[in-house]
């Protein structure tokens, strides 16, 4: 009877049980009492569920999740490397090394690390096949003069 009440019987069994119930008042009473018992349990449970505040419970769970310690960036990176099949291949090691070397060379070319020639002279060389040349430096104001004595020189001089 419990199986029939819980709807766990086959179609054939149900037909047999229902046929029997029509002629058996004792079994009908048993079925009725089962139905009453079920109702008496179901109603308080439904009322309790309606009273329960599920959003509040979820908020509590969320707060607990947020409070959990976040993994460090290094751990995240390591886990990503372990997961990513591409990075497991050793071909990336020379590739990354090459890129680093390239960046270093490029930076050297762009900025040319030789900084500022603090003591270097302004004029590296000066020559004139025809005239005398004078070089004069001033620090205040910061001026360097290269003067060509443009005269009809008799002898050609290089300074």
């Amino acid at each position, binding site marked *: 009877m419990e199986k029939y009440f819980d709807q766990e019987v086959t179609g054939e069994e149900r037909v047999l049980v229902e046929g029997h119930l029509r002629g058996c008042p004792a079994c009908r009473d048993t079925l009725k009492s089962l139905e009453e018992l079920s109702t008496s349990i179901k109603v308080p449970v439904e009322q309790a569920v309606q009273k329960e505040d599920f959003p509040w419970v979820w908020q509590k769970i969320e707060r607990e999740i947020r409070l959990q310690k976040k993994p460090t960036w290094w751990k995240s990176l390591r886990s990503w490397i372990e997961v990513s099949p591409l990075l497991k291949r050793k*071909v990336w090691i020379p*590739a990354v090394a*090459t*890129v680093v070397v*390239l*960046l270093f*060379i*490029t930076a050297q*070319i*762009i*900025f*040319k*690390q*030789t*900084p*500022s*020639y603090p003591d*270097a*002279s*302004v*004029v*590296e*060389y*000066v*020559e*004139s*096949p*025809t*005239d005398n*040349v004078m070089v004069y430096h*001033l620090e205040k*104001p*910061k*001026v*360097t*003069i*290269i*003067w*060509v*004595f*443009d005269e009809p020189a008799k002898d050609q001089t290089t300074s």
Partner: protein
Amino acid sequence: MKRLLFLLILIGLFCSLFFSSAYAQVQVRLRVIHASNAGSNVDPALRDLHKELGSLFSFTSYHLMRDETLNLSLNQTASISAHEGRIILEATLVGLHRNVAEIRLRVVREGTEILNTQVRLFPGRTILVGGPRHRRGGVVIYALYARF
């Protein structure tokens, strides 16, 4: 996969070298001045240089003939003619560092080289190259100043 990676590295190398050399550039302000003792006029455009010119030279008149801004790339030569093309200044950027521009200067007068020099332009330093005679009297002075 390995071939593709090798190709990408080669392209990267080529691009980085190309762009690094292409962008190595300096801006040089070049002013061509006619200095003479005819009159006592100082070009208003030379107001910033007037004090220096006055303390260094004994000319009474300064006239700005040309004011050019040259964007020089490495090994690129710019030619500036003055005095109806009789005097030509050639400026070539031969080296560029963080705040130093190495420039080779050639002054050619009527087809003859009268000056060949290489200078380092530092921030805040002006280089005056003068002396070539002007036909109407006086001399030509070039004032160079690099902007980094």
